[in-house]
């Protein structure tokens, strides 16, 4: 299995190397869909220049990356292209290993449940075989590396790639069952972009499941483990933040990074939902609506945790998608990360209802972004409403895609336990309606 992975990596490196040398690189790195105010390479370079001059990089309201990233590039600035290629490769390999491991776990669980006779008798066609699961890790790596979104964000040297790597390592550590590494990487991811904080819940659920600790309020082990994991997480977060403080000798980065993420002062258009809304709003309402908008990311975590208690990895996927849709400065690089997981759920394909239309919508929107941007900014014949309409469609498409997967997942679980051919009490064929 290693050979195809190496081949995929080689192809990905070639594509990136060619694009770095082409004239497209400059064009792509200017695109607002790829580079947000948080992670644009231009801003990192600006921050570095300030740092070299002995000024705080956060003075000037241009640079909003974290201190660790700027120190990373302080040493590696000459190899920036290489760094971004390597981070992409690392992400792909981490996802590959994680998915491989997860598939083994999944298969074992399925075997166990079959042996325990938990499944309905007529669901043979829903049972997954090692044959079809064999290529899934490779497909995941392929989906991540050759996804145009990933390629573009790598070419634009958006530091989003680094966030993705950290999250991928977090997923790998979680699935391998290492609570310590998982907590450390989760803390790093939170430190980088704040929102991965919500991934705490699925990670904890997964680790508990691995330790065979039931999620019950009265269970002492449960509380012990939760406190332990939370302690590890908060401890490493504290260490990282203090490290950043000692690097720069100031707390400037807290308002400049996290304040910037939470209060959304920069309304440059992007693929997200925030910019247009807050550009149109009267100033004195904005605090309230910032809260409303930000709460979206965190709001779904608890209901999802209750519903998907038994399936933490799917929960993690949904949560990643929610983050990339509702975060304040989303870029296509964030979307690429959760899209990499789609092959993992390929067995849900028969339950998906709108996959064709939704993928068409997403593709069309992606193509229309630059067209409408051109009409708005360069030709001056369209206006921001056109661009926002596409942004809105794009996000609605993503939300529908995720809910489609969500319902498909629940539907499959239901069928597995209740049998594929449901009958009503009077013996006629029944339809499953999910509400």
């Amino acid at each position: 299995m290693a050979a195809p992975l190496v081949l995929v990596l080689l192809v990905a490196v070639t594509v990136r190397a060619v694009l770095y040398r082409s004239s497209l690189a400059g064009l792509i790195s200017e695109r607002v869909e790829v580079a947000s105010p948080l992670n644009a390479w231009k801003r990192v370079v600006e921050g570095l220049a300030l740092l070299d001059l002995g000024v705080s990089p956060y003075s000037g309201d241009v640079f909003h990356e974290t201190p660790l990233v700027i120190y990373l590039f302080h040493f590696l600035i000459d190899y920036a292209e290489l760094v971004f290629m390597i981070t992409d490769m690392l992400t792909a390999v981490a996802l590959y290993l994680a998915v491989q491991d997860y598939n083994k776990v999944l298969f074992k669980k399925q075997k166990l449940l079959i042996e325990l006779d938990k499944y309905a008798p007529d669901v043979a066609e829903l049972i997954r075989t090692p044959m079809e699961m064999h290529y899934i890790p490779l497909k995941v790596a392929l989906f991540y590396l050759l996804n145009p979104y990933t390629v573009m964000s790598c070419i634009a040297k958006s530091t989003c790639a680094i966030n993705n790597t950290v999250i991928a390592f977090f997923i790998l550590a979680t699935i391998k069952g290492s609570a310590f590494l998982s907590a450390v990487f989760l803390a790093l991811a939170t430190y980088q972009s704040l929102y991965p904080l919500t991934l705490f819940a699925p990670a904890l659920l997964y680790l508990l499941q691995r330790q065979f600790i039931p999620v019950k309020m009265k269970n002492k082990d449960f509380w012990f483990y939760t406190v332990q994991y939370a302690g590890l997480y908060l401890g490493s977060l504290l260490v990282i933040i203090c490290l950043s403080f000692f690097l720069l000798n100031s707390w400037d980065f807290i308002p400049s990074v996290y304040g910037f993420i939470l209060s959304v002062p920069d309304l440059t258009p992007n693929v997200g939902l925030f910019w247009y809304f807050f550009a149109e709003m009267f100033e004195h309402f904005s605090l309230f609506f910032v809260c409303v908008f930000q709460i979206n990311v965190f709001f779904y975590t608890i209901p999802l945790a209750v519903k998907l208690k038994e399936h933490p990895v799917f929960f993690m996927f949904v949560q990643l998608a929610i983050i990339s849709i509702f975060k304040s400065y989303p870029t296509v690089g964030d979307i690429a990360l959760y899209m990499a997981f789609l092959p993992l759920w390929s067995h849900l394909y028969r339950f998906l209802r709108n996959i064709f239309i939704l993928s068409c919508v997403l593709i069309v929107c992606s193509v229309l972004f630059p067209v409408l941007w051109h009409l708005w900014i360069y030709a001056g014949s369209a206006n921001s409403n056109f661009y926002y309409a596409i942004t809105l469609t794009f996000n609605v498409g993503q939300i529908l895609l995720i809910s489609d997967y969500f319902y498909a997942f629940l539907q499959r679980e239901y069928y597995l336990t209740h049998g594929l051919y449901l009958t009503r009490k009077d013996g006629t064929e029944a339809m499953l309606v999910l509400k």
Partner: protein
Amino acid sequence: MSENSMGLTMVEEQFVYGERALSYAREFAGHKKKAGGMPVAWLEKTMWNLGLEVYKQSFARTLPFPDELRERYMVKGTNVYGILRAPRAASTESLVLSVPCSQGQQNNQAVGLMLALASYFRGQIYWAKDIIFLVNEHDLVGMEAWLEAYHNVNVTEIQSSGMLGRAGAIQAAVSLELSSDVITSFDLAVEGLNGQLPNLDLVNLFYAFCQKSNLLCTIQGKLQRSDWDSLPAYLHSLQTLLLMVLKQGSGRPQGDHGLFLRYHIEAVTVRGINSFRQYKYDMGAVGKTLEGMFRKLNNLLERLHQSYFFYLLPSLSRFVSIGVYMPAFGFLILILVLKALDLWMKLSRCDVDPADQSCDGGPMAAEEPRPSLLPLVPPLLICHATGLALYFVPILGQHMATQHFPVSESEAVVLTVIAIYVAGLALPHNTHRVLTGAGSDRGWMMLKLLSLLYLAIQLGCIALINFSLGFLLAVTMVPVAAAVQPTGPKALQAVLLVLVTPAATLLFGIFLYHELIEYPISVLEGWQRFLQAIAEGLLDHHLYGSVVFPFVALFVYPCWLLLWNVLFWK
């Protein structure tokens, strides 16, 4: 008119220098003849004497291949412009009046009128925006050089000297073309590069002043009929509309104004026409109209933005807005989407029930239960490689072609384009050798599904940028694209498919155009025009950045080849 600051009753025109315009024109003609080109020194001196700040800008451009129609290859020239500084403002905004200095006796009167207007404007105190009077050499090439230098960018490979004098952001521009001492009517050209249009308010402004001074004005050379609700009048409007669609779809600037639009400057070209009508207007009347327009533009508080940017004009006083024509186009695209959806349903039915004989050729299905995208990769790659060849080879290979064949460079380029285009038709036979085990029905269905969606996306995107181009391509390609399949009468389908390729559309477009301007041409002439149009398309792309040729070569043509592959799927 939607713009509030351009209400009609606020200005009174008093331009009286008609005679002076004619004397300037005669003087200019004399100096032009003597200099054998643009009389730079004389223009500078005259403008200086009028009290303008005069600058010149020299430029040079080597064309990618010789332009046979205008007989030019290495272009060198000078633009001369004078700035009238506004007495009441700080040079932050400006207006442009540009006149191309063309070869022969063309446009002398336009230069004369421009100078007379400059001398008149100089004496007025109400200007709040600087006015730039520009004489550009080598029409569009000079215009592009001037605009690039003015905005300090270099998007084409033009070399030009830097620019010393500027006058703030240009708000609007009028390009004037006038070749006779008296005129019978004005013609207005709106279509710019890539089919971009100026704000409708500028068109309305022009129309309002023509009405005010009782000037006849036409669009696409067609006069508006007084009765508008009779059948012949509808047909007349339809002809005007079709002419506009064809011109806009070509993506060529229909006058010097066309290049301004790319820089977010609203601009139109006004042409004086001298025909056999009885009633003629002298320079005074023409000058008054322009004076009025400039005074109105001078009153602007913001860039023109109130009115429509997307419209089609069946006559000067009526327009079709985007809200009316886009749904119609949407329905055209819907055909493709619905057909694709139909194919998708068929494909997924095959998936669920692999034993279904109707969708798959029997035993093949059992061996390969899951659809694989792998067999689609070779046709996609090969079609796009052909597209890339179509785009790059003609220009790069022209020298080799002239060495080996007795043709000139521009002929070589055009013939290479046609050769590669036609060679693409032989592709299905070659791609099949690369394909392995793709003989199933599912193969062509997926390929067709893919190409239909691809086509729909392309047409949708181009219709937003250049509606007419998208519409022309959609009307021709969509029905056949939706219908094509490897079963059924192959010869008929092949003929239909060939008839709707973009090249054939161009050929029909040329005949239709000449039919509409009531100047029918023979088949041979049509062919000549066709070759010319290809060369012009390439030149437009390389000189000004028109997207029509690359769009067709890199996207539409490969997509059409995919459909061609579907037809010959084995």
